[in-house]
């Protein structure tokens, strides 16, 4: 379970998150959505322990993040954070990178071999698995980073914009189905961000809408749609976050027609 309590954070004089509190139960997928610059990535970094909140606390499975060395290491064994743009080592193959990641999270070598093979097949990386990563395309790198998150077998996955970065439709489908399986069958917890609601509607159990560092809404997808009377999550979010967009578009086209 993830618990965020009254978290405030800022970069210099600019507040990024203001009094953010929410819980995510084990076996659930939370999608954090919001416009650009709303604080999604900052919130993910706080959840991942890359920074300490200026105020408030982040707790994962009952252990407070960044409190003591032992507690922090215990959390890291249970958590994998995948940033939007991952780092890749040089002079190493995709398969070796996955093996090294598995070793970092203390997965047995036998299990690593077997799991890597299946992941590479699902994400269509089998043909290039033994090639140097420097030769991979952007989409292939994204797939490899997703594989590294999955190979860790952590109970908590923190994925910052997992569907962006050149992922092809096959990769998107594979990731969606794997995430659904992990939460429903293996009781894992997934927190992901995306600026595009259509991509997360299928996988998310709950949606947290952030705007200017504050929570606008936190509810299950169905509840959100019922509340706004929208047929899709995309439409519901448009009504909640960008109500003025339709008017602005109408105004734009009217001006266009006149000129």
């Amino acid at each position: 379970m993830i618990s965020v309590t009254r978290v405030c954070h800022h970069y210099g004089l600019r507040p990024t998150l203001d009094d953010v509190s929410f819980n995510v139960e084990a076996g659930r997928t939370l999608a954090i959505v919001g416009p650009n610059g709303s604080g999604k990535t900052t919130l993910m970094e706080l959840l991942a322990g890359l920074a300490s909140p200026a105020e408030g606390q982040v707790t994962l499975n009952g252990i407070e993040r960044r409190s003591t060395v032992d507690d922090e290491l215990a959390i890291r064994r249970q958590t994998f954070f995948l940033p939007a743009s991952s780092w890749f080592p040089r002079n190493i193959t995709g398969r070796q990178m996955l093996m090294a990641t598995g070793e970092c999270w203390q997965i047995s070598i036998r299990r690593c071999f077997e799991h890597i093979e299946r992941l590479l097949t699902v994400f269509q990386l089998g043909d290039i698995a033994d090639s140097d990563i420097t030769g991979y395309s952007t989409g292939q790198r994204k797939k490899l980073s997703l594989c590294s998150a999955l190979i860790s077998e952590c109970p908590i996955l923190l994925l910052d914009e997992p569907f962006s970065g050149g992922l092809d439709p096959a990769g998107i489908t594979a990731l969606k189905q794997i995430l659904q399986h992990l939460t429903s069958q293996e009781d894992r917890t997934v927190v992901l961000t995306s600026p595009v609601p259509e991509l997360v509607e299928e996988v998310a159990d709950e949606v947290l809408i952030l705007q200017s560092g504050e929570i606008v809404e936190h509810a299950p997808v169905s509840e959100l749609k019922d509340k706004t009377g929208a047929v899709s999550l995309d439409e519901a979010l448009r009504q909640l976050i960008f109500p003025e967009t339709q008017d602005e578009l109408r105004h734009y086209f009217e001006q266009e027609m006149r000129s």
Partner: protein
Amino acid sequence: MSDWYRRSLPSRRVQLAFLLLIIGIDVVVAAVWLSIRIAWGAEAARVGTDFLIAISGILSTLSAPLLAVCRAERYPAGGSEYAGFLAGSPWTEAAATPFGPWHPVRKDVGILGVLGLLAASHLGLFLWLNTPDFIISAQPLFLPAVITATFLLPFVVFVLSWAVCGYVRVAIGWRHSILIPALTLGMLLHVGREIGALAVIPLAALTAIAGSIAVYRRMKSQLSQIPLVPTAVPSSDRSGRLSHANRQLCPGVPETFGTWLLDRMSGVSLLLSVVAGTLFAVPAWQRDTLIVLPLFVSLYGLFFAGVHLEVCAPHLGLAARWSRKQLRIPGYDRAFAPILWLALSSMAVLVPGYGLEIPPRLTVGVTVAVAVWVSLVTRVEIAEWSLTAPARFLRRPEQRRPTRGGGGQATNAGQPAGYLSESSHT
């Protein structure tokens, strides 16, 4: 094994390029030598091929620093993306770094052995082509000694280059530190030409071993910090800069010219060493002037200790000690012992060298090597010093006031505000 090679060596392209270059030159040498010998005789063949053999030999020796640079580059220096990756994982310094080793490992002996064999065979061929009569008439141990030294050269160059690259990486995080071993190699060759190549190799080996031990300890120590620090380090953070342990033990001291100087003391030391080394190596020094060396070392040490004391711990500085009539604080002064050792060791080498009338340049070379060794190895590690020194010299975060009822901790009367007293010795 192949996995280890991929993780530890330069990319396949670079390996292939070096190998092809060495083999290619050898093939050309053989072809040129054979054709010239058939057409014009043995003497003409020698003149036409010795240059190419020398190039090939140098290439096989230069592979060693390349390997060292490649290895040092795998060090997850603080603030790097690699360190960020590790800091997000449950990795601790007790485990190996996941993407290959960053320090010399046993398997290197195999590769360096091959490079040594290549270099030694090239040298043997060079000597045989150039001075066959001299080899036959020379002392019986000359050729084996030269060949053995050449065989060991890649090992020495590798360890030395790794130590230098590692030092630069932890000191300033400069990834393109390949220029430093190149510079060092150039200096070694220069000095080697002056006092004989055979004398340089043991000196370089001594410096390389001592330096690599010290650098390894420092790198390992920094590595242990990775799981503890947040990875979202602002680019302006300067905590990764290598400064003397004393500076790291006095956080919160306001930025002044003194702290600026202390932060750069390692760089200043390196620069002064290079300048001093060049000064002693290049001009024709007389035996009478050798005494300047330990004097220089001692004065530099005293300057360094003085700056530290007055900047970081004025309550333990010379004026404060004089006023308290307590000149010696053993627990605290332990960190300055290497300076004393440095001066003593310099004298210990110079005086016999002076008395035995050993060539001055050789004496200076040995003195510099011993001084470097002593300064690197006898240094007190920050963790050990801060945990075991009987003196309490850390700056207090904020001054506590006595609480009502006398249960609080009183301030230290007579001490500058913000510092705890030096408990065991006052």
